[in-house]
């Protein structure tokens, strides 16, 4: 490991902490419905959207109404996106003349982008027309992220409100998240990316004749506009197959740093927003500290592991001094590649700037663990926040059991209903992951997708279901995922990982919002100090470990200890 690599990692963590507060203040203003400096431009547009869609922006919904709106919106969006992919050959902006996307892949992709997963069972540059990329995939990059933010805001209101039946209005939260947060930042981000070399054109390719006289056909397109929201919305679905490893998506180390920051910016801001909404910003910082602790441990392990070379390289006699550069870009090197892998899986982003499938066994286990832990280390926009609060409820419950009193969090009593719902939400993804992996590993159709045999092949399968159910979207890319079996199995996992978490989370929000807030007393367990931070981190690790240790033992752990080639 190099000192420069560690400085980069620490600078990154420091910058995230710097961004969190201003972002949190801005988010608080947006979702309290206050005027912001963008209101003169956006408020008329916002009102027009409500008028045309018949949304009563000043009437809040109870949790059932909120959830029903979100489910209906997701359903309509899935159908529309599927139709667009089926009809792209008849529509304009298709300079490559791509045909309709295969129905199973189109279904998988529609579910994937609407659930903010952005799992990609296709290669963007050889499958999707420009219109599909723009009016389909880019749109869902915005809206699935906005829906996630909306749920997080509603969840925070559950703690902030007292004796209320309502948790906000989904349509308003989703609209404001898009108009006031995602779109303005994406515009600035896209301009920066273009200045740095990310293409933005309606042409389909750049035709060149190389110095050795061969033709080179280089795919281009409206990349920058999609790239910006891909990162900011923790979507992760690349314009190109190689995602952020592709020089056109991520041209230099600076764009790489900014992309990593953008993945975390809204997620970190939401935590601070939560603290402000409940009237104690330190509550937010406590959560952020627990996240930061887990993040640094994982990143350090991944970085260290990637400085080693793999058994395959040892067998071929490679000089070990540069570490494992298979699947990594020179301009990012080891530290920025390991850091990106940790960031993209801690958040539910799923963009990659290096190929996780070619990481060392332990280096590749870190991103996998981040996903399996529920992507609560900052987490996806919205999803990470309500994810970690579900763990917080569980941690408070366990603390209550230990001292023998009714647990309370932020003055709200945590009772049987909340704990049951939290456990349901926390176990939904592991169930989808383990059942899906078990079926795939024990059937021929499942094993047929494996690229690398042995324990690593099992890791490819496990990673794919973790990524799908965690709504992450990154992959051990060797797995052939466009078969009927995987497109449908992953789609089911993605739906379970999205809606079986969101719906219980909203139910908890509704239940909490209706409760009175009890004032803190000497018997209250403080949730803004180091004891709570440690307990929260511990609960996350224990739940993740208890659930997944057997599976990890068969995959990455077996591979790391075997030290032989397949």
């Amino acid at each position: 490991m190099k000192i420069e690599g560690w400085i980069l990692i620490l600078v990154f963590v420091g910058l995230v902490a710097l961004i969190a507060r201003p972002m949190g203040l801005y988010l608080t203003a947006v979702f309290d419905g206050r005027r912001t400096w963008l209101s003169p431009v956006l408020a008329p547009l916002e009102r027009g959207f409500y008028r045309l869609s018949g949304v009563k922006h000043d009437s809040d919904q109870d949790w059932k109404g909120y959830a029903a709106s979100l489910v209906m919106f997701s359903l309509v969006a899935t159908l529309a996106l599927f139709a667009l992919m089926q009809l792209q050959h008849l529509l304009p902006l298709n300079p490559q003349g791509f045909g309709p996307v295969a129905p199973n892949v189109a279904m998988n992709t529609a579910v994937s982008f609407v659930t903010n997963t952005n799992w990609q069972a296709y290669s963007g540059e050889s499958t999707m027309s420009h219109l599909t990329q723009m009016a389909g995939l880019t749109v869902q990059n915005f809206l699935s992220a906005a829906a996630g933010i909306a749920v997080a805001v509603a969840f925070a209101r559950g703690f902030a409100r007292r004796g209320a039946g309502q948790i906000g209005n989904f349509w308003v939260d989703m609209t404001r998240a898009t108009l006031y947060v995602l779109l303005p930042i994406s515009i600035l981000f896209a301009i920066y990316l273009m200045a740095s070399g990310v293409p933005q054109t309606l042409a389909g390719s750049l035709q060149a004749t190389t110095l050795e006289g061969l033709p080179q056909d280089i795919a281009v397109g409206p990349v920058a506009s999609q790239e910006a929201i891909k990162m900011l919305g923790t979507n992760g679905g690349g314009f190109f197959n190689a995602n952020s490893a592709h020089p056109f998506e991520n041209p230099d180390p600076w764009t790489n740093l900014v992309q990593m920051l953008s993945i975390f910016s809204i997620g970190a801001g939401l935590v601070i927003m939560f603290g402000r909404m409940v009237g104690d910003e330190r509550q937010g910082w406590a959560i952020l500290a627990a996240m930061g602790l887990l993040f640094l441990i994982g990143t350090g392990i991944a970085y260290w592991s990637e400085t080693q070379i793999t058994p395959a390289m040892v067998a071929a006699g490679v000089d070990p001094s540069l570490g494992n550069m298979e699947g990594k870009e020179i301009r990012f090197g080891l530290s920025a590649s390991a850091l990106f892998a940790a960031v993209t899986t801690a958040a539910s982003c799923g963009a990659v700037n290096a190929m996780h499938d070619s990481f060392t066994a332990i280096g590749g286990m870190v991103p996998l663990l981040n996903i399996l832990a529920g992507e609560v280390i900052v987490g996806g926009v919205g999803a990470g926040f309500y994810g970690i609060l579900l763990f917080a409820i569980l941690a408070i419950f366990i603390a209550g059991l230990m001292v023998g009193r009714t647990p309370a969090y932020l003055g709200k009593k945590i009772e049987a209903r909340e704990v049951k719902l939290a456990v349901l939400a926390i176990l939904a993804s592991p169930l989808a992951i383990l059942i899906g992996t078990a079926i795939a590993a024990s059937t021929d159709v499942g094993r047929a997708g494996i690229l690398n045999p042995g324990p690593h092949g099992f890791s490819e399968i496990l990673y794919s279901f973790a990524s799908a159910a965690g709504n992450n979207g990154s992959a051990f890319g060797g797995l052939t995922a466009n078969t009927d079996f995987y497109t449908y199995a992953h789609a089911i996992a993605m739906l379970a990982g999205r809606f079986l978490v969101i719906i219980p989370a909203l139910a908890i929000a509704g239940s909490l919002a209706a409760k009175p807030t009890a004032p803190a007393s000497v018997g209250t367990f403080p949730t803004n100090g180091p004891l709570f931070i440690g307990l929260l981190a511990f609960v996350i690790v224990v739940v993740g470990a208890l659930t997944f240790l057997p599976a990890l033992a068969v995959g990455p752990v077996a591979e790391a200890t075997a030290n032989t080639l397949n």
Partner: protein
Amino acid sequence: MLKHVRPAVVLLALFTLLTGLVYPLAMTGIGQAAFNRQANGSPVERDGAIVGSSLIGQQFTRPEYFWGRPSAAGAGYDGRSSSGSNLGPSSQALSDRIKAEAERYGVPASDIPPDLLTASGSGLDPHISPAAARFQLARVAEARGLGENVVAGLIDAQVETPSLGVIGEEQVNVLELNLALDALDRAPN
């Protein structure tokens, strides 16, 4: 549920218009006007012909050019098929590929800078390490009949260093380096 259909359909349509057409097309307008070269893929021209993109690696096999890293993009540096090898840490196929790649250089693998033996994530990596460039110096200089000090000077001029010491890695853009080599030959003596 039915009362949620209208806002769902109308808002999806409006946001498709705004974020799916207005936003990307406006960005395209800005990009084409303000950052024309970058927005079109950073093409590199020589004598009026496009010879590549400064951001995208290309295949070099002749001895008189510096070679880039192994590429898993299509048959090698295919600009329409970006991809890593995705071969795992204990993959026999990876080990075999590295050995085959080392034979290209005619020396044991342990003597070759490792980036020349490992495929990049995109398959389009435009860079190699300065060590990987210097490793090829003798071959290129001999093939071109140039002094090694001349070629070494070219490499030194092309080495990019990390910004602020920590953002990025030491690297050499292979296409730019080869263009500089060609320019040397083409210069009137």
